[in-house]
């Protein structure tokens, strides 16, 4: 059954931000009505679940959130379509409750020109699962030597506002200063992958007790913290906006807290995996746990949770990093860094922050939707309030569900989830992108998207079978 984009949805008994149940009507791409549970009239008479274009979703007790926004996604296309494509990655994003993602720049070719960012932007539009906002590289080819054409990317159809060499650190302090200054002209932000390169040559995992025992070259916390300290001072000096990607250490949280106390315009993100996993997992040398920055210690995990709860850390971003099997089915030191995260992020945040009483669902909306939308400067369409007249970018979550994670059954094209075999709480029941269901009844709605995309030159010309 296809679900046409013109469908009207009536969400029964949903709890916006986890508050009291209401009925919510989505029509014509916006939130058309909100009323006390059971009182909202369906626009046309409904018998059963579906009548014509009206679909009623029985969702008693489910939490309604603004559609999630990921500031840090690796979609791998162009270049590594064996790991993920814009289509497969954004489909996974929808399954995880996202309505927008920022596609990181470390593609091949690099997203360092207007042409490449427009290509990724267009692939995202054609796929239709979420809004795709390409991140522009700070330096040409992520080489760390010459600024990419930041202005051209900002002025392009992709309207790039987030710039990052993620995977590489902009380690040259002069180049970092210039990038911070330059993007002010179009309200951009530099998102720094904080990793002092000399301190992390050959680094494989967190430097500490575990690395000492198992003989893997250490990635010391100071290599992250020293760059963050330098960058917040640079941002203060030139009056620029700085975003710190995937901070992972207790010391980094302290530096951000200090910087914010000083009034420096800095925002910070943490990944779901750094909220829960530790370097002890490296002991069996399973490269699925190899990630950059590396998994840290229990003390760091506690520090990033506390930082997220008190607002020092502004957002959770997935750093979704798909890799084909062969890049993980090998010696630890030969394996690729990174793990998938789009389909587990919300569950990890629920488990570590909501179920522990440290955050409300309104806080979840803040760190997974409103703040990332603001940092990415996409608040015209994303991270909006749940209110009548607002764009219907929404995520419906069943917090009482539990599921055991299996990499192969995930929507992403790659299997490298660190949560395989673990039971996580919560399940995305539905995702709406401008009123259209991309996920319904917990499953991605392929019909709607294929209907839209099939008219777009995607028929397989030349295939004779």
């Amino acid at each position, binding site marked *: 059954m296809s679900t046409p984009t013109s469908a009207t949805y009536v969400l029964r008994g949903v709890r916006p931000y986890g508050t009291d149940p209401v009925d919510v009507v989505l029509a014509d791409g916006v939130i058309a009505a909100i009323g006390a549970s059971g009182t909202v009239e369906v626009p046309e008479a409904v018998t059963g679940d579906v009548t014509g274009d009206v679909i009623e979703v029985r969702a008693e007790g489910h939490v309604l959130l603004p559609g999630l926004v990921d500031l840090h996604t690796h979609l791998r296309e162009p270049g590594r379509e064996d790991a993920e494509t814009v289509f497969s990655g954004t489909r996974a994003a929808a399954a995880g409750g996202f309505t927008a993602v920022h596609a990181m720049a470390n593609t091949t070719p690099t997203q360092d020109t207007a042409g490449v960012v427009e290509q990724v932007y267009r692939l995202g539009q054609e796929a239709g699962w979420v809004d795709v906002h390409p991140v522009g590289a700070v330096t040409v080819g992520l080489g760390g030597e010459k600024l990419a054409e930041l202005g051209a990317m900002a002025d392009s159809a992709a309207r790039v506002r987030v710039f990052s060499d993620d995977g590489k650190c902009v380690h040259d302090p002069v180049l970092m200063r210039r990038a911070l200054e330059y993007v002010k002209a179009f309200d951009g932000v530099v998102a720094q992958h904080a990793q002092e390169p000399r301190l992390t040559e050959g680094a494989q995992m967190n430097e500490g007790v575990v690395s000492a025992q198992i*003989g893997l070259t250490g990635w010391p916390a100071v290599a992250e913290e020293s760059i963050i300290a330098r960058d917040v001072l640079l941002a203060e000096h030139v009056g620029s906006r700085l975003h710190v990607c995937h901070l992972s250490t207790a010391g980094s949280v302290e530096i951000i807290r200090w910087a914010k106390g000083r009034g420096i315009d800095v925002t910070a993100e943490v990944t779901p995996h750094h909220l829960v996993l530790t370097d002890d997992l490296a002991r069996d040398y399973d490269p699925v746990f190899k990630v950059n920055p590396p998994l840290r210690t229990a003390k760091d995990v506690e520090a990033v949770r506390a930082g997220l709860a008190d607002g020092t850390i502004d957002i959770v971003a997935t750093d979704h990093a798909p890799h084909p099997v062969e890049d993980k*089915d090998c010696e630890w*030191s030969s394996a690729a860094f990174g793990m998938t995260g789009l389909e587990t992020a919300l569950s990890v945040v629920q488990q570590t922050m909501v179920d522990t009483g440290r955050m409300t669902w309104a806080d979840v909306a803040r760190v997974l939707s409103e703040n990332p939308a603001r940092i990415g400067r996409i608040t015209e369409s994303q991270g909006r309030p749940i209110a009548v007249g607002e764009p219907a970018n929404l995520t419906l979550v069943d917090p009482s569900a539990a599921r055991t994670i299996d990499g192969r059954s995930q929507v992403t094209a790659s299997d490298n989830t660190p949560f395989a075999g673990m039971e996580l709480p919560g399940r995305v029941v539905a995702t709406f992108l401008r009123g259209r269901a991309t996920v319904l009844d917990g499953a991605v709605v392929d019909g709607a998207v294929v209907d839209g995309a099939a008219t777009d030159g995607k028929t397989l010309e030349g295939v004779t079978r």
Partner: protein
Amino acid sequence: MKHLLTTQGLSKGDAILLLDTSAQMAATQSRENKKLPTLRGRTVVNLFYEDSTRTRISFETAAKRLSADVINFSAKGSSVSKGESLKDTALTLHAMGADAVVVRHSASGAAHQLAHAGWLDAGVLNAGDGMHQHPTQALLDAFTIRRHLVGNVGEDGRGTDTSAGADLSGLRVAIVGDVLHSRVARSNVYLLHTLGAEVTLVAPPTLVPVGVETWPCRVSYHLDETLEQWQPDAVMMLRVQRERMSGGSGSFFPSPMEYSRKFGFDARRLAVLPDHSIVMHPGPMNRGLEISAAAADHPRSVIVEQVANGVAVRMAALYLLLAGTDAAGTDERNTL
């Protein structure tokens, strides 16, 4: 005992059984016919991703003296050098019916992965993985220490070893040099501790890993102080890799000369030790850097004997992995 991957977590009972079995193996090696029929028909693969002629021929000799068929699979001149993955190599060895794989690899954890990734069901014997572990080296070191300092085999090592069943309690061992990069140090710290010895690591602070505080040993930055005040019974010198040490991304110490002055072992330092003490080195030595010729060739140096004991220890390890019962049926212990 299915695999021998690390000394961390090896029980004291297993460690002593390995040493006692090694002693039985060593006893057979003074016979005219050194060959035992024990592993006839079994296949042992030496899978060496790093060049190490010494370790490879030691394992090869051990396997052959137990009558096993030995296949040497080295990275050079094989499909490995053409980029075949560890997994594919493991699947190949599995298909060929290897009973035990002795693996030397530059990646820490490679032996653990071979044993546990489900690629292979052979017993895996770690012959050195990256900076992680080299368990048979530690076992041969412990065996050598026990023979000399517990078993009273005499300075020439030819006396009767009376140490069967004994541990190393009360003995002091100083391990000196590049601890940071050393799998030998890691293996020895855990094994010697399990056997009851006290261990002091001696190195410049740059060559001690962050996180060493959880290791069951002391750490000193001063060799002379350790030798004079702690009076170790055995001093084990670690190889220093010249190329990684000074300048560039190394800079672990200012110069080989300064290293040698502060941490090199020589006759002067030997003279402050107790008379019964022994000098050890896993080889290959950098004479004139971490050890002087006078110390290496001194009567109290057991370095050549370590090599001989390596064969006995590797025979014992292969035997216990593959035969699973006690050596030659001559002993009552069957605890594994």
